[in-house]
């Protein structure tokens, strides 16, 4: 062995020795791990609700089942068809993680007090109808025959006395049947309502985080008034032939962030101050880092929105949102006008596969003011938003068709083989972004969410994720939408 070889051997061995030592040290640490088995006492759930038989109103002479207490982890509960499960104004119903609540035909869940569905990432909760097979592949079924819109049960109705409603890691599916006279009278709502979820107390708190909403009929979520925090949720096939997915009206304040919308009938998120009650605040909503894909195509009425919409006296801000192949772009309505003096926006990203889509990036007839921070750049070409363009004008979007592919992990862009509106559910797609995505690092983080609900791991918002640096709902650093 020459000296040179020895030297090289040394060069090779030294790192090996270090690695071996490290492994040994690591193993030692492993060997030295300690085990503890100390008795712990968990207080039993108060008023546990039995899952042995369905919650039933038969034979009582009314449709009412009153409930309070705890639905236990791992259990499956059923509400009999035609019954209204009511949480009285002074009562609380809590669903532990891993609860399934099967709703019978035309049943409803009326919350006049407090309702917490406390699902978790590993043990999500379901409020659903059993036995329905989803048909989510693009073009698998027409909307008229899609079981997503079967509207089997009526929905969750937060009445005017509902203090707190929390949906955490919870699936809401197949609701939206017409409330009818009797149910709406109990809930203090409207008999023609077909909402999967209604919240109607401007003094109450509505929190929805890390949850899923699937299908529906009219607006899947109607917030007539309330203090809201809607974070990191996924909405698929929301609304049948109309309806804005998260539709908030006069007297609603809060934040909507990191939500994923695909195939909504009309808008994903809409803010309006219409119907503001005496004493209720002006609608003020902050929307950021939301993703909208193929929105707005099932609305049979024309001229409606498809992703974000501010109208009729609503104020707030929207930044860092992503819209892909939506029928209309981010919409600020001039008549009846949004509170444009108190509405700020920018850093919003749009992608369109067809000129029909790109022609409506700034929807014709509205007052959305193109921002210099928007993508594609508002000075992309001489034709796209030409000199002299005024908000609402017709322009030629040809030059920006297929510009700026957001590079999702698994979603065909440009789309091919199916009409844009047929991409209406997550299916086996994945809307997380590649590290090479043009969305990365382009977002604006110099503002704060508007948090008016309590922060609490159970009885409030567990995490108010601040604005993220990547545009859209999914962040490269693992923050944002967790689905």
């Amino acid at each position: 062995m020459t000296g040179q070889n020895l030297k090289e051997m040394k060069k090779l061995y030294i790192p090996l020795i270090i690695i071996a030592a490290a492994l040994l040290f690591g193993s030692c640490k492993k060997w030295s791990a300690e085990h503890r088995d100390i008795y712990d006492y968990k207080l039993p759930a108060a008023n546990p609700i039995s899952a042995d038989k369905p919650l039933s109103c038969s034979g009582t002479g009314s449709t009412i089942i009153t409930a309070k207490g705890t639905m236990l982890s791992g259990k499956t509960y059923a509400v009999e068809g035609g019954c209204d499960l009511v949480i009285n104004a002074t009562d609380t119903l809590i669903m532990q993680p891993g609860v399934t609540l099967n709703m019978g035909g035309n049943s409803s869940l009326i919350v006049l007090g407090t309702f917490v569905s406390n699902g978790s990432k590993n043990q999500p909760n379901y409020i659903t109808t059993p036995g329905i097979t989803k048909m989510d592949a693009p073009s698998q079924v027409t909307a008229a025959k899609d079981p997503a819109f079967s509207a089997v049960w009526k929905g969750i109705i937060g009445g005017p006395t509902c203090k707190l409603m929390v949906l955490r890691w919870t699936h809401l599916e197949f609701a939206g049947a017409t409330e009818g006279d009797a149910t709406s009278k109990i809930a203090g709502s409207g008999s023609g309502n077909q909402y999967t979820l209604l919240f109607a107390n401007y003094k109450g708190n509505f929190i929805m985080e890390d949850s899923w909403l699937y299908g529906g009929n009219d607006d899947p979520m109607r917030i007539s008034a309330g203090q809201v925090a809607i974070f990191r949720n996924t909405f698929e096939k929301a609304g049948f032939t109309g309806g804005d997915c998260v539709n908030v009206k006069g007297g609603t304040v809060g934040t909507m962030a990191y939500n994923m919308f695909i195939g909504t009938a009309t808008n994903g998120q809409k803010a309006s101050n219409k119907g503001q009650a005496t004493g209720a605040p002006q609608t003020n909503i902050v929307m950021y880092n939301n993703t909208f894909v193929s929105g707005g195509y099932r609305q049979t009425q024309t001229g409606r929105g498809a992703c974000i919409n501010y109208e009729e006296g609503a104020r707030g801000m929207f930044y860092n949102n992503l819209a892909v192949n939506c029928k209309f772009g981010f919409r600020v309505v001039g008549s009846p006008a949004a509170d444009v003096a108190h509405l700020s926006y920018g850093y919003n990203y749009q992608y369109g596969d067809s000129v029909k889509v790109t022609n409506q990036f700034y929807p014709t007839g509205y007052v959305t003011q193109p921002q210099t921070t928007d993508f594609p750049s508002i000075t992309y070409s001489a034709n796209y938003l030409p000199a002299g363009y005024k908000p609402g004008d017709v322009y030629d979007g040809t030059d920006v068709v297929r510009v700026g592919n957001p590079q999702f992990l698994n979603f065909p862009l440009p789309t091919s083989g199916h009409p844009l509106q047929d991409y209406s559910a997550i299916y086996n797609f994945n809307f997380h972004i590649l590290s090479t995505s043009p969305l990365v690092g382009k977002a604006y983080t110099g503002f704060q969410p508007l948090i008016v609900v309590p922060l609490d791991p159970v009885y409030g918002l567990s995490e108010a994720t601040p604005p993220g640096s990547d545009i859209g709902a999914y962040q490269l650093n693992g923050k944002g939408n967790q689905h």
Partner: protein
Amino acid sequence: MFLQSGEYISRLTSDTLGLGLNSTAKSKQVTISDRNTYTKQNIYNATLQGDHQLADNFRFNWSGVYSLAKRDQPDRTDFSFDQNTVVNSSGGIVSRDSNDVKLTHHWERNSDKDLAGYGNFTYTPRIAGRNVEFQFGGMYRHKTRSAYYISYSLGTTSNIFYHGDLNSLPFVFASQNDATGAYNAASTNDYSATENINAEYLQFKFNLFDKLQLLGGVRIENTWQNYNTAEPVTFPQRNGTISYTDVLPSIHLKYQLSDIQNIRLSYFASVARPGFGEVVPYHIDGEYYDEIGNPYLRHTTANNYDLRYELFPGGADQILVGAFYKDITDPIEYFVVRDGASPSKQDIQPQNAASGAKNYGAEVQFTKYFGLVGVSANYTYTHSRITTDKLLYYNDPIKGLQQGLVSQSRPLQGQANNVGNVSLLFKSNKIGLDMQLAFVYTGERIAQVSPYYNLDYWQHPLSQLDFSFEKTIYKKISLYGKVNNLTNAASKIYLKYPHGNIDPKQQEFLNKQDIANQTMVQSDIYKISFLAGLRYKF
């Protein structure tokens, strides 16, 4: 008496106006709204009455009335359809779309039964050298109604265009669930209701002095109303019973200034009760607003004071001058109210105004004949005031847009400040001809109370000219006719809000505005109507 009527209506409406409503940038160009109805009505009525002289100064008269009214309106069908166009800056049509394609079927029928009996005793003794008339008696009335109603709507799932053939439109239920029959729009419209009223009174009339007549008395009215709807037990207001008793005194003084002149002074208490049509919590689809009932509606009571001077110079001539004051408790008005949790839906509901209302005013009435030709005129001025809370939407420098309540005083709904009419009369028994030319003026009044401050709907002053005549042709046969609205006066409704201040985008729909600081929202033109007939008197 038996009367049957069958009425078929086919109404075709094409509305070329429209608003860019519901936050869309579209200009609505055509709204088609068609309706077919068939209504069958049967009315039976029977009256029996008697008058008995029981003694020299003791009389009894009575009457009994039975009536039955049935109304059946099977399958009223409404079709509506909007066509929108998108226009470019030069007004050319870029594209068109259809909206709100809807076919609604209503089925309703109701039957009203009314039984009433009246009895009055009159006793005219001579007390202290004067004729005194005592009257006492009572009435009983029993009314029942049963009403049935069902309605359902069909829509389409895509943008369909209507080209005149209804059968080609693929109508479906709006939701798969609606088709199961599990949902009825409003079971409160299926109801039975009963109203029983009995009243007893005692009244006296005598001359306190030769020239001063005193008429006074008291009347007690008991009202009992009950309704039952088809709603389930969980439905508040599903049934209800309402009863109340009113004690109503009255006193009338008449002082005879001379043979042809009187002065009258009177006070009386009165009631106006809502019918069960207003009390039952029904919900009926209207053309602009839906109408809903109000089980908490109270009946209206009023104290009325009147002073009047009368002059009868001879023949049919007369002059009356009077003043009045009415203090009204729980006046009933039709308010526009929010419905349930929906921000856009508003209904019309009868309600009581908590503050009550006060009306006072003066009236003049005058009739004078010059041979066969006469002039008759009357005029009433009424100052009416009621105060209710109105909503005001305003911009607070700190809190932003807010909605608050503000008190606002205004006249009672429907109460005009000035009402007058002048008639030219011609009457000749010799040639058997009677003619009348009448001019009626009704001053500005509130047609509909708005929930919002300063936004009531005001009906513009209306002047109408009508002509009528009756001519005997041969003995018991006469020809009669009426020509109404000779000047084709339009009934116009305004908001007292300058139309120039309305959102610029909606200005194009406000054409034909004629008052600068108001906004005309409705103008009904009825044209001239004619009626002629032959009458035979048995």
